């Protein structure tokens, strides 16, 4: 039995054309005998002569890359007979557009968070400073109470100052013991939970990051606003009581700006207390208050 020596099998191109595959065959390195389908696709789109024409117009060092692109183009055309590589290009353009839009959205969200964080930091600083100053005022007012001349005066002051002190406590407890940070943390946990849940459902969906981002904003803003509003309300309620103690004239002036019914009742109570606890000069001024009230 004789052995064939040195006989190499014909390449897919020569096999298809049913001719002898010579050693100088240009297509042999790129279309091995076992890649018949690839050659058929390339032959169907370009044709052997056109492929050889392209290779001969190029430097031999470029043959490999050129053949790679030709085979790729032919395979894509086989898969997508109508659009071929143009369809792939359009798809990629669309993908890029979607990614750029998503990036823009994310960057916008990031900027909003940055601004919100900066604003929040500034507010916390202001609140902290105000807290310190109001605590100092409260200490001073307590010291003043301790130095009051009569015991009868104490109930008035105690009654009047007790409320702001309580409010102060409320104010402090709402901000120091349970600062807005807790609300932010709760919201952050919710955000984290939402993010992980969405990730668990699938990360390849481009819509999910956008859905997360749209939900991120909502819970953060309202609870913080509520806390701050509560703080402002407390501060507003403290202020008029200080005015009534320190400066009766200012109380009279402010009385004109308020509603008549509520102000008259509070005025009556105040004047009764004042008549019982103060001297003659005060009585005269109280009467003046009463007269002014009657005029109005």
């Amino acid at each position, binding site marked *: 039995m004789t052995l064939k020596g040195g006989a190499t099998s014909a390449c897919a191109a020569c096999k298809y054309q049913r001719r002898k595959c010579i050693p100088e065959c240009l297509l042999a390195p*790129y279309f*091995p005998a*076992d*890649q018949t*389908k*690839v050659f058929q696709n390339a032959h*169907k*789109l*370009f*044709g052997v*002569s*056109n492929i050889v024409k*392209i290779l001969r*117009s*190029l430097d031999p060092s*470029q043959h*490999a*890359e*050129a053949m*790679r*692109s*030709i*085979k*790729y*183009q032919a*395979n*894509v055309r086989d*898969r997508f*007979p*109508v*659009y*071929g*590589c*143009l*369809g*792939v*290009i359009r798809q*990629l*353009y669309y*993908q*890029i557009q979607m*990614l*750029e839009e*998503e*990036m823009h959205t*994310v*960057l916008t*969200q*990031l900027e909003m*968070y*940055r601004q919100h*964080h900066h604003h929040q930091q500034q507010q916390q600083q202001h609140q902290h400073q105000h807290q310190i100053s109001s605590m100092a005022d409260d200490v001073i007012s307590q010291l003043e109470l301790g130095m009051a001349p009569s015991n009868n005066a104490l109930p008035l002051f105690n009654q009047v100052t007790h409320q702001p002190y309580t409010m102060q406590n409320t104010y402090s407890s709402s901000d120091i013991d349970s600062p807005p940070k807790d609300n*932010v943390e709760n919201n*952050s946990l919710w*955000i*984290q939970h939402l*993010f992980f849940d969405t990730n668990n459902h699938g990360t390849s969906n481009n819509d999910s*990051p956008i859905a997360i*981002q749209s939900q*991120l904003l909502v819970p953060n803003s309202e609870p913080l606003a509520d806390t701050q509003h509560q703080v402002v309300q407390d501060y507003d309620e403290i202020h008029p009581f200080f005015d009534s103690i320190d400066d009766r004239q200012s109380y009279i002036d402010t009385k004109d700006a308020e509603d008549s019914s509520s102000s008259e009742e509070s005025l009556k109570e105040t004047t009764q207390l004042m008549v019982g606890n103060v001297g003659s000069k005060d009585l005269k001024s109280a009467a003046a208050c009463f007269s002014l009230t009657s005029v109005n």
Partner: protein
Amino acid sequence: MSSSSYSSSPCAACKFLRRKCMPDCIFAPYFPPEEPQKFANVHKIFGASNVSKLLNEVPTFQREDAVNSLAYEAEARLKDPVYGCVGAISVLQRQVITLQRELDATNANLFRYAYNEMPPLRPPPPPPPPAAGQSSGFYYPYQWNDPSDEDNERSSGGNM
């Protein structure tokens, strides 16, 4: 000798091939005589017979799209004989990968910021250039699932 009552101008394909443009000419609707270069490019790269066979395999309502895509690919191959339109695909695919990485990093940054209230990090540096082991750094996005071709793709550095 009477002249023909109606004679339509031959299509660009029949003009180029110097043959009579028949009424049922498959090229006539898609290669008007006003665009001679279009057919010239297509014929130079693919050949008229191949284009004719391709058009016959495609439904009539899609033939115009098929011709336009062939014209685009032919022009791209003439401009870049080595890579043709595949060069554009490679560039676009790299762009997609880069954008996706940047988006992932930015999303992670946003999440960190929202959860930890920490200042956002800078965007990540651009990805490094392709490894030196690859023949050309060329990226083929679409993998041809022919098993006989997989070895050839791997050896030439195709990345899928």
